């Protein structure tokens, strides 16, 4: 359960809207189902009071929305940022993707968001309603009722939360957290321990599920190119269904390369994947390698930091050492 009540955020949003600090609010609202919380833009007090939601399903990271929203907005935009979202926020600022002056950022505490798929694994299909309280109460169309601890069904990225520290905000609600000791690289280490054949088989099995819906790309805060290579007819990979093995792998591998060094490990790609592909593992492998080769680096920890892959120091590891040390 989230420590902070929805009403606190509604009050904050309404007061900032009413006193003219901001002209619109980026927040969450209910979707088709209780667990289907979607991002929304609110411009009126009434809309906020009626539809603004904050519960255990508010995983969406709003940072990326600022790229487009700030271009059009007349005034400032209020955005609520969980600690993990603030890293994406800073990374986008590093890349000059939006005007900081046009944003009013409010940091909010987060106890971890839950994964509906993990709930489904307990309750089975046919969820009719979900209520977030001390426990998560799940009702199904078969008149079954489940009471589940949120901590048992957290999103993978929240289980291995890397930081409760907000690295950017204009105003913070609640208490400041700190950078956590995370076990987020354990899964990567397991992949590294595999033989190349095993690893190939693992990724082949995972990536072959891809339906090329582009959700991972669309949600990714690092994927903000004016024109995406996958939308470019000349690229030869534009909006293409994964017709063969090569294409299904290349899409994700190209994407991982494109965001390497810029990915903050916000975990949105895996959260939104309808095929439940653990896409974050590709990015985490890059992050782990970068940390090991060039020293710890967290994209978005500060604005303007130079990612090791786009930087050069005389102390950098020689390519030959990379190969000798890790070549297979």
């Amino acid at each position, binding site marked *: 359960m989230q420590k902070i009540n929805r009403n606190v955020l509604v009050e904050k949003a309404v007061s900032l809207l009413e006193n003219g600090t901001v002209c619109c609010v980026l927040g969450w609202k209910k979707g088709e189902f209780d667990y289907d919380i979607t991002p929304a833009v609110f411009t009126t007090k009434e809309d906020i009071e009626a539809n603004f939601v904050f519960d255990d399903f508010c995983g969406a990271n709003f940072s990326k929305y600022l790229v487009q929203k700030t271009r059009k907005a007349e005034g400032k935009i209020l955005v609520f940022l969980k600690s993990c979202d603030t890293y994406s926020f800073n990374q986008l600022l590093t890349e000059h993707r939006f005007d900081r002056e046009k944003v009013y950022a409010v940091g909010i505490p987060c106890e971890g968001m839950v994964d509906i798929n993990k709930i489904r694994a307990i309750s089975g299909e046919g969820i009719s309603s979900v209520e977030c309280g001390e426990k998560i109460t799940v009702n199904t169309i078969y008149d079954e009722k489940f009471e589940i601890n949120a901590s048992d069904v957290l999103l993978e990225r929240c289980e291995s939360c890397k930081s409760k520290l907000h690295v950017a905000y204009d105003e913070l609600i609640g208490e400041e957290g700190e950078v956590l000791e995370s076990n987020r690289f354990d899964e990567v280490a397991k992949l590294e321990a595999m033989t190349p054949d095993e690893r190939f088989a693992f990724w082949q099995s995972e990536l072959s599920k891809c339906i090329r819906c582009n959700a991972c790309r669309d949600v990714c805060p690092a994927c903000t190119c*004016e*024109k995406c290579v996958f939308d470019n007819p000349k690229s030869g990979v534009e909006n293409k269904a994964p017709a063969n093995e090569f294409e299904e792998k290349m899409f994700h591998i190209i994407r991982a390369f494109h965001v390497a060094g810029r990915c903050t490990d916000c975990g949105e790609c895996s959260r939104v994947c309808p095929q439940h592909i653990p896409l974050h593992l590709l990015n985490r492998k890059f992050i782990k390698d970068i940390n090991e080769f060039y020293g710890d680096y967290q994209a978005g920890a500060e604005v303007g930091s130079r990612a090791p892959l786009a930087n050069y120091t005389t102390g950098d590891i020689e390519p030959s050492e990379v190969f000798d040390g890790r070549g297979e």
Partner: protein
Amino acid sequence: MQRIGVFVCWCGTNIAGTVDVVAVAEALKKEPGVVFSANYQYMCSQAGQDLIKAAVKEHNLTGIVVCSCSPRMHEATFRKTAAAAGLNPYMVEIANIREQCSWVHKDVPTGTEKAIILGKAAVAKVNLNVPLTPGESPVTKRALVIGGGIAGIQTALDIADAGFEVDIVEKKPTIGGKMAQLDKTFPTLDCAACILTPKMVDVAQNEKIRIFSYSEVTEVKGFVGNFDVTIKKKARYVKEELCTGCGACTEKCPMKKVPNDFNLNMDTKRAIYIPFAQAVPKVATIDADYCNMLKNGKCGVCSKVCAAGAIDYTQKDEFISEKYGAIVVATGFNPISMDKFDEFAYNQSKDVITSLEFERLTNAAGPTAGKLLRPSDGKHPEKIVFVQCVGSRCDACNEKGKEYCSKICCMYTAKHAMLTRDKYPDTDVTVFYIDVRTPGKNFDEFYRRAVEEYGVHYIKGMVGKVIPDGEKLIVQASDLIAGKQLKIDADLVVLAAAIEPDKSARPLATMLTASMDTNDFFTEAHPKLRPVESPTAGVFLSGACQGPKDIPETVAQAGAAASKVIGLLAKDKLTGNPCVAQSNEMMCNGCSTCERVCPYGAITYEDKEFRMPDRSTLIRRVASVNPAVCQGCGCCTVACPSGAMDLKGFASEQIIAEVDAICK
């Protein structure tokens, strides 16, 4: 559609020996866009070039593919040929079917197949080539010489002599380098100081030359003709412009136990010092590690005795920015550390010394005032053993030493042996060697004099071990010619330590983007034909930083480097490279990644208005490249996350077309 002509060169038998040139010409004729194809014995000859010119006219060619040697050899030639025929020179592509094909393959079928593939790739690229026009950039008419040894001194003097300004950056408090530490020089045996110090004075007196002593280069930006260099003038706590070099401070300084690095720590100096009598600039320097005033604020004697008021304990490192058109690297060498060579007991016995230490022991300005005395007890050594190739010519698997020959050791050892026998005929001198290498003018005669006239014992064989035994040293060695093991006594053992590039060279190479070999010697642009130029335009090599050299060779190379610099500085404008980056503004995200990776500072950002499809206006931040500054390195094109940055002449599209042609 291009109209492409393909010209396959035989290069005598260099290519035609392993490549069926007729078959290559025939095969490429079928490639898209190719309208003419020919082969000829020497395409680079006048007749070959005329063939190309005639074909351009006759077949209205718009692009040319020359299948020949490496573009490093003749790309410029064929570009000029194209220009003479009225084509844009950048419509020429070279398929390297010599170095990358005929020379590496042994049989004709393989060579021919590969030559055809390389030709196809070049044709695929030319199909996408567009005419390019180079820009021009100005030349800063001043040179920087890094290192103030004999190499740097000679280069600076020669450049200044041609009328250009030169700055020397020397990390030690004085110029002079290793040569200033030597006693006599082979093969003529004139005194090193007698021939070097006049040159040092020339440098000091030359109006065109500035010396930044006790200074280091910390940052290099820019490119040929327009380098921006930051020089760190280390705090020497003495105002250079006031110090007269009278030496009063160095006599009165109470801190007497400072190791004297000029004498290789065989004696001591004061905490404020002038390295040697003929130092240039003759200015005192305070060693901050030893000065009591700087360490704990107690003393100030030098300040009291200085009549000129030159002492300044508050001095700080100073950073100076200067512009240069050319940079000469003259960072020199050092003997390798003997720490790993325990078998020679260098660290166990004071009487095992290196040859450079021997130079100081025989130098009149050295710790023993030129008397050859044992460091341990100050007695005259009666038996001296010289060991050559210590750390030189080692096996690749031997991690202690170097694979290369240090080149100078045979000669200086012969010199040491000869001088010892000359001055102290009662001394018994033995030299252990692997080979004696004396290929220089009057070198072999010199060595033979040591053996024949001076009676130096030369024994072919390596020393296995030196064992300190009381006052003596026992030398265990093999005599390969007699085929026996030797055990001889010695009072002094002199090790001809291998030489290696100065440690400052590696970080400097990084700053200069100049390449180095595995031993950290700077690589020349061409080992035979461009020996004093680095592959990085505007960076030149002088002296031992490029490889082991003796003084005559160093001076010759220094002069050669100077002449190359003069040739560059004499130009008012340099024709740029039109293969520069350009940003596709429609795709640019304005993320600044390219700006951060650009080594030349060629990329800036601007807010630009864009008309959107719905007729609204959008202001976006986009990259723009300054073509005069861009060197076409391509860093930005690979760093750009959105693929907006591309390199003219090497566009991603062209490279993919080449790869496709190869993989088809």
